[in-house]
């Protein structure tokens, strides 16, 4: 089963370090057999999926209670993505084994990239919304670890965090969107939801749901204005860039949008948003690419451009656009993977990533330059490569767009020009022209490194030459993602001279010109730097700073270290909540009679006087004595109101407390009057509010309806069943003995605490190991 395969893939990943110990440098190549096997298996499904047009269903339960299944289903889209992921994955593994040969962290790298591969596979095959999200987030985390692979480098860590933060932020929006989708569609199965488009599009939650889902997709696939993390992610080792940032992870967002097209697509909102965002991204990517000399950055921005294109195509959403979408997707994965690996080869062999520092490498590395050229031509959309077909279909779709046709066309045209320039920069600049001295003496890379790009470049070429082989696949895929009808698709290199071809030709010429004047263009663009600095990335930085600022501000405001503020806040909350409930939820009844003897009133007065005096006294021990008076008065109250046990306890406790306080206060400083008058006033208000609250509550309870007591039972049964005449004591040791048990434990705990505080001081400065001091001899 595929699920088992994916899950065992994770296990395999975990064992990579162990394997590495046994197999050494060959590990990567051997591990590549695993995705290769998956490719084979997927190809075995081809007849069913592509030939018969029936998706393959692989049912598996997970958490049925939460409607989460691990069911996979393989339709055209799934198969296409699955093949790309596993296929390019295998190549990347082989490539990385060589690229990172001897690197101490190679085993860890293999762990993460294999885990990433499996997450990606799970993502594109999952049928369940939640499972999809699970794998989605796993790709974020694993890609985080990959971008930060050079973890001792601050910029790598920063880039990793940026990528993670943006994609996870989007991921959380996605989660909300998926939940809304599940709730609105009353199903958690993607396949099922695809059949419920009508209902979903009409649902109240449609707009928020769509916004959330698109946020997830846009961030993941680096759509404007979230595109900035992708070029920064080039801090990752090149195999990672080749894999994550061309073929797989960034395409997850695209995949999702394609997947949701049948359920949610086609509305005004969908079309407008996707085509506009896609178009803008397309242009932004291309435009920003041209500014850079770092080959990986160039490629990264051109990836942004491609992602924008794909989104735009989904937005346009016509059958043609969807066909273009699938073709372009496939073409891009192939050439971009190849180009990144070439970039890695250049970096690996020359020791630099700067295109301007290279030149004339064609002589030193002919194979590489050939591969680069083929891939770049595909990128540029030059016949007879697959990229050309993709671009032509794209331009054709734009011309058929229902909204913003002109704008989109303009953007596509300019993007095409710039892309051609980029392709030229990447494929011509390093290899042609005069030979330059590079930090490392360049030569052809090992075969393992060439294998990947070569395979991909050849595939680009072959599929461009024989596009008909893709017809069924594209047709099935397009049918699966919401084309009105599962039309028979016929991909062809030559459609005759039509408008798209003319546009392409013009673009080719202008692109070439741009390439020739590239250095000057760059110099011109440098003037825009201040503007760029205010781009979305600045926004991201501002958000990050704001988070920390707000956090610090909040901490200063709330967790300010002043106990009295904490207390006052706590009490105000209490008084506020209780007061609100008291006055707004309750009609207070105060019905009571005052039945007091003078001496009782005097005792109560003394109690108050003791307490107030304790507050007013300038001297500590006088305050203690005043508290003593209060305590004795309370004991007297207990005597007057039939509680001899309480009276005894109260006065014993009072006496012992005084003794304790006196023993302790001896060492302490005198009272100091530390607060300002305004503070005292504030405190007085808080204190009075609390006091008044308590009084009112008591009066309300005393005046309101009161129910019979359970204590009547105790009074009746204390002697017959409890064998005791002192009912309070019977309650303490029998009826509610558990309370008493807890209470003596409290007392014992307090004693241990006191003892430990007084006799045990761990922190001898400098010493880490605390020592007990004379633990045996004191009582």
């Amino acid at each position, binding site marked *: 089963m595929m699920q088992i395969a994916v899950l065992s893939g994770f296990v395999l990943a975990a064992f990579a370090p162990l394997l590495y110990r046994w197999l050494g440098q060959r590990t990567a190549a051997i591990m590549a057999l695993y995705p290769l096997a998956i490719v084979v298996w997927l190809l075995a499904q081809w007849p069913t999926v592509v030939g018969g047009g029936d998706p393959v269903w692989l049912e598996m339960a997970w958490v049925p209670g939460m409607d989460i299944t691990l069911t996979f289903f393989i339709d055209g889209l799934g198969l296409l993505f699955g093949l790309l992921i596993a296929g390019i994955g295998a190549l990347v593994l082989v490539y990385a084994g060589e690229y990172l040969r001897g690197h101490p962290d190679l085993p860890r790298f293999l762990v993460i990239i294999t885990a990433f591969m499996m997450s990606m596979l799970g993502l594109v095959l999952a049928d369940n919304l939640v499972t999809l999200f699970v794998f989605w987030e796993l790709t974020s985390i694993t890609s985080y670890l990959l971008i930060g692979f050079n973890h001792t480098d601050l910029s790598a860590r920063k880039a990793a965090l940026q990528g993670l933060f943006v994609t996870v932020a989007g991921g959380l929006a996605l989660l909300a969107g998926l939940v809304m989708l599940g709730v609105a569609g009353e199903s958690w199965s993607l396949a099922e939801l695809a059949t419920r488009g009508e209902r979903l599009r009409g649902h109240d939650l449609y707009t928020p749901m769509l916004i959330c889902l698109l946020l997830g997709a846009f961030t993941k696939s680096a759509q404007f204005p979230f595109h900035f993390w992708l070029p920064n992610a080039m801090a990752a080792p090149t195999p990672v860039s080749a894999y994550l940032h061309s073929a797989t992870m960034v395409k997850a967002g695209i995949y999702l949008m394609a997947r949701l097209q049948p359920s949610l697509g086609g509305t005004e909102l969908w079309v407008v948003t996707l085509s506009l965002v896609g178009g803008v991204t397309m242009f932004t990517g291309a435009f920003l690419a041209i500014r850079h000399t770092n080959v990986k950055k160039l490629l990264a921005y051109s990836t942004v451009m491609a992602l924008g294109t794909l989104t735009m195509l989904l937005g346009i959403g016509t059958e043609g656009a969807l066909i273009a979408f699938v073709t372009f997707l496939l073409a891009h994965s192939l050439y971009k993977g190849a180009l990144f690996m070439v970039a890695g080869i250049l970096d690996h062999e020359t020791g630099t990533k700067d295109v301007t520092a290279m030149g004339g490498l064609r002589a030193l590395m002919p194979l590489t330059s050939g591969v680069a050229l083929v891939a770049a031509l595909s990128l540029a959309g030059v016949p007879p490569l697959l990229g050309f077909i993709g671009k032509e279909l794209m331009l054709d779709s734009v011309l058929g767009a229902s909204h913003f046709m002109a704008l989109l066309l303009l953007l596509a045209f300019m993007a095409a020009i710039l892309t051609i320039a980029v392709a030229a920069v990447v494929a011509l600049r390093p290899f042609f022209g005069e030979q330059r001295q590079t930090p490392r003496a360049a030569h052809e890379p090992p075969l393992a490194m060439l294998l990947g790009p070569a395979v991909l470049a050849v595939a680009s070429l072959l599929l461009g030459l024989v596009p008909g082989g893709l017809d069924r696949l594209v047709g099935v895929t397009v049918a699966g993602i919401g084309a009105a009808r599962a039309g028979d698709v016929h991909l062809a290199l030559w459609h005759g001279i039509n408008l798209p071809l003319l546009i392409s030709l013009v673009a080719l010429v202008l692109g070439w010109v741009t390439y020739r004047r590239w250095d000057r263009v760059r110099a011109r663009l440098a003037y825009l730097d201040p503007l760029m600095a205010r781009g979305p990335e600045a926004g991201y930085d501002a958000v990050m700073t704001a988070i920390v600022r707000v956090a610090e501000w909040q901490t200063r405001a709330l967790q300010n270290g002043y106990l009295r503020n904490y207390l006052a806040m706590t009490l105000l909350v209490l008084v506020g909540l209780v007061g609100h409930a008291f006055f707004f939820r309750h009609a207070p009844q105060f019905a009571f009679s005052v039945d007091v003897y003078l001496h009782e009133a005097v005792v109560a007065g003394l109690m108050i006087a003791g307490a107030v005096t304790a507050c007013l006294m300038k001297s500590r021990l006088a305050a203690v004595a005043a508290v003593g008076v209060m305590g004795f008065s309370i004991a007297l109250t207990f005597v007057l109101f039939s509680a*001899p*046990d309480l009276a*005894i*306890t109260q006065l*014993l*406790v009072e*006496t*012992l407390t005084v*003794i*304790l306080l006196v*023993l*302790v206060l*001896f*060492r302490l400083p005198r009272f100091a009057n530390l607060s300002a008058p305004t503070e005292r006033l504030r405190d007085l208000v808080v204190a009075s509010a609390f006091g008044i609250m308590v009084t009112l509550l008591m009066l309300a309870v005393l005046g309101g309806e009161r129910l019979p007591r359970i204590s009547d039972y105790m009074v009746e049964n204390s002697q017959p069943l*409890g*064998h*005791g*005449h*002192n009912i309070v*004591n*019977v309650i*303490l*040791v*029998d009826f509610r*003995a*558990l309370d*008493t*048990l807890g209470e*003596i*434990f409290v*007392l*014992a705990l*307090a*004693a*241990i605490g*006191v*003892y430990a505080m*007084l*006799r045990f001081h761990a922190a001898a400065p400098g010493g880490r190991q605390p020592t007990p*001091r004379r633990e045996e001899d*004191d*009582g």
Partner: protein
Amino acid sequence: MVKSGTLILNVAARFLLPLQLLFSLFLLLRGHDEPGGGFIAGLVAAGAFALYLFAFGLTALRAMIKVSPRDLVGLGLLLALLSTLPAWWQGEPFFTSQWWTIPLIGYKASTPLIFDIGVYLVVLGSVLTALTALMATDRDPEEA
């Protein structure tokens, strides 16, 4: 160095200690029927020792009571806990009181009484633990 107590206080302490202890036992055993009980009795006993402590000092107190107050706490807790178990033996919920008549003297013994004795020991031990620790640090301030 200040002397522990004065002659008059010492004599008073020597007299009052047995008196107070006796009274505390009285309060303990009679607590089920009249005001009193383990807690009150324990506090009285602790007060008695506190007086002795003030009069004669820490060393004299330790010499007199011999066991560590912390042991009293542990024993008391254990005793109180054990008193809950006989009920379990009888198949009743924990804490269900069991009453026995001690043959010769006809005294009614019970698990609540054992429980109360545990309370007594804990209270006495806890207060003494705190007091002796305080006095001990009071004695040599430089240690702090």
